[in-house]
């Protein structure tokens, strides 16, 4: 008897849970896979949106655990913004499948691939294999590190938010215009800071910086990784030291999630400098939003280059 009533209670409890309607909320719930996208969504959405970013700016966005806590966030989202270009290939799809949220599935209205309107570099042509390391067949996914692309992403977010919340269209347009102005003013600053170092040759750890370096006129002449995603090897490191000496490159830019041992060994040999830059919003404490990210990186980079080049 006891057992039977317990079963009844459990069943009715479950039934009620099934019927419980979702509590409507005035804010659009935006989930962004990275803090960069999250920052742009906050810039445009203001208090009309609540933004959750999954990957932290100081973690390698290729290797993020698809944690069930992320499933909860995605299951509640009205809009999911992704970097795309297969950056999230190792972790996003289990989240999408388990989220049970049809609003944000690829192809749905609440899914925004931020890479669709930006400038993509390093799209491989011809045959590609994994002998080339972790190649991204759809081009380099670190495209947000060009403020021009940031502007394009913000436009895409503005349009998408307006589509999802038509009543606030003017609000989003206003916030975008404001962001656009601040970004343009900041770009003047950054360009001025970087102008003396046009054409300087540098090395980066991973291929995270092509858009950034192209935008600010630096030339990436080599990588600490022998191939994308492959850890440093002694042979490659020796070659790189030789090449850096030959062309006079002194600076190695490293993401905060890579080990500094090899870069430091290289710069010790050539009398150069290792610089840890933030590859994403949140990658350093000071890089709290999209504009501060560049303020932080450009500040560190220009002072390091000043010291190394004497310009």
């Amino acid at each position: 008897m006891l057992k039977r009533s317990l079963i009844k209670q459990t069943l009715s409890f479950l039934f009620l849970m099934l019927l419980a309607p979702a509590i409507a909320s005035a804010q659009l719930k935006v989930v962004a896979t990275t803090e960069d996208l999250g920052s742009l969504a906050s810039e445009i959405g203001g208090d009309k949106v609540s933004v959750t970013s999954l990957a932290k700016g100081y973690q390698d966005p290729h290797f993020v655990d698809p944690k069930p806590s992320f499933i909860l966030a995605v299951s509640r989202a009205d809009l999911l913004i992704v970097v795309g270009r297969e950056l999230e290939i190792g972790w996003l799809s289990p989240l999408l499948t388990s989220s049970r949220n049809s609003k944000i599935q690829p192809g749905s209205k609440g899914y925004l691939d931020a890479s669709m309107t930006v400038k993509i570099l390093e799209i491989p042509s011809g045959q590609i294999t994994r002998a080339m390391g972790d190649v991204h067949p759809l081009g380099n996914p670190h495209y947000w590190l060009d403020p021009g692309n940031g502007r394009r992403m913000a436009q895409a977010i503005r349009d998408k938010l307006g589509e999802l919340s038509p009543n606030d269209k003017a609000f989003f347009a206003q916030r975008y215009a404001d962001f656009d102005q601040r970004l343009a003013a900041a770009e003047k600053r950054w360009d001025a800071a970087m102008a003396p170092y046009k054409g300087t040759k540098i090395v980066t750890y991973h291929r995270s910086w092509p858009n950034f370096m192209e935008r600010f006129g630096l030339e990436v002449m080599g990588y600490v990784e022998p191939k994308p995603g492959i850890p440093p090897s002694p042979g490659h490191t020796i070659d790189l030291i030789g090449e850096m000496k030959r062309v006079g490159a002194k600076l190695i830019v490293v993401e905060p999630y890579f080990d500094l041992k090899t870069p430091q060994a290289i710069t010790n040999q050539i009398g150069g400098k290792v610089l840890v830059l933030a590859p994403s919003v949140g990658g350093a404490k000071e890089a709290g939003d999209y504009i501060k990210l560049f303020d932080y990186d450009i500040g560190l980079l220009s002072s390091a280059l000043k010291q190394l080049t004497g310009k």
Partner: protein
Amino acid sequence: MRAIPSVCLAAMAAGLLLLPGSAAAQSQPDASALQQQIDQLKKEFGERIAALEAKLAESQAPAPTPAPTPEPAAPAQAAAAGGAKYFNPDTAVIGNFLGTAGHNEINPSPALEMPESEVSFQAIVDPYMRADFYLAFGEEGVELEEGYATLTALPGSLQAKAGKMRAAFGKVNTLHTHVLPWADRPLVINNLVGGEEGISDAGVSVARLIPIGNVFFEATGQVFRGDAAEGELYKSSKPGDLSYVGHLRGYFDITESTNLDFGGSYSQGHNAAGIVDDVDLGRFTTQLFGVDATFRWRPLTRAIYHQFVARTEYIRSHRDQFDGLQKADGFYVSGDYQFARRWWIGGRLDQSGRADDASLLDRGQSFLLTFMPTEFSKLRGQYRRTAYANGPTAHEFLMQFQFAIGAHGAHPF
């Protein structure tokens, strides 16, 4: 009378259902939709980028400060042409090569074998479901390891699956061989839950997400035909001899780098103990109870270099047979530590009774070293000592070599 409450329970479990972490751990990436889309757009991307570059060069010529960029072009429409290949499923093949040295009189393994090569096909079926197929190619035959459709657009935080699938009983039972942290399966799984094959059967599964605050709960209920591990665990003698699995999984983040995953499982089905001359005289059943816990530590800024995972499962089996109810139990406790970008070290303690004779207790210890050149290949050595209840202690050295080609799978979690 006895059967009624069990069926009720099972049905209730089915109502409740939730998918354990295995779903996340296992489903390979379903990049397919994204990729299809992107593939379609790729062509015109080339052109558009060329145009953009030209524009950029122009706008940058006089002064590097770009004026506010014009409105982005409307998202390009997918190219009409392109052909059916965009809808081909993501395909991957994972080879698993195993070498064993040492003596084991109770459960000997071949010196060298290719026990299983897994071929997977995964794609989105339509706006309402996706499909995942995993074919296991042994040295002599092919078997459908899993093949199911997942309904992703159900209301009420529900998710349903239909087809053949690994049951949501505990953790290890849900995992494919290539994502296990060991070269073998723990003793308790082999003795009580059907070993390598485990509870893997044709059936339906319903799982519901039940978040309580920021704690993730998922309840899963599954009903299967009633066969498991080739009749060693469950054996269905009549169409009504279904087997049932219920699972509740909880998960919460302790900090951003540490989390705890825990669960409880129940399963029930008919066993083969009462079958005499192909007639099920005994009509005996087996009940399984399990609890599991997984603790993970992965510091985010050093996530590719260091992590630690501790896991444990305790399983209890109540197997009815002619000589009465056998109540056997067992557990494993394991820890794995990644100490460098490509290197893992690990250990596991095993102990388990035997399902058909609870008085026989096997014990084991393993020590592992794993080298992963990339996320697509893995070389693992495992020293395993097994003290069998009914025979000499086995000392074995297992060497496992795994390699994957094809679509990029999701990272196991």
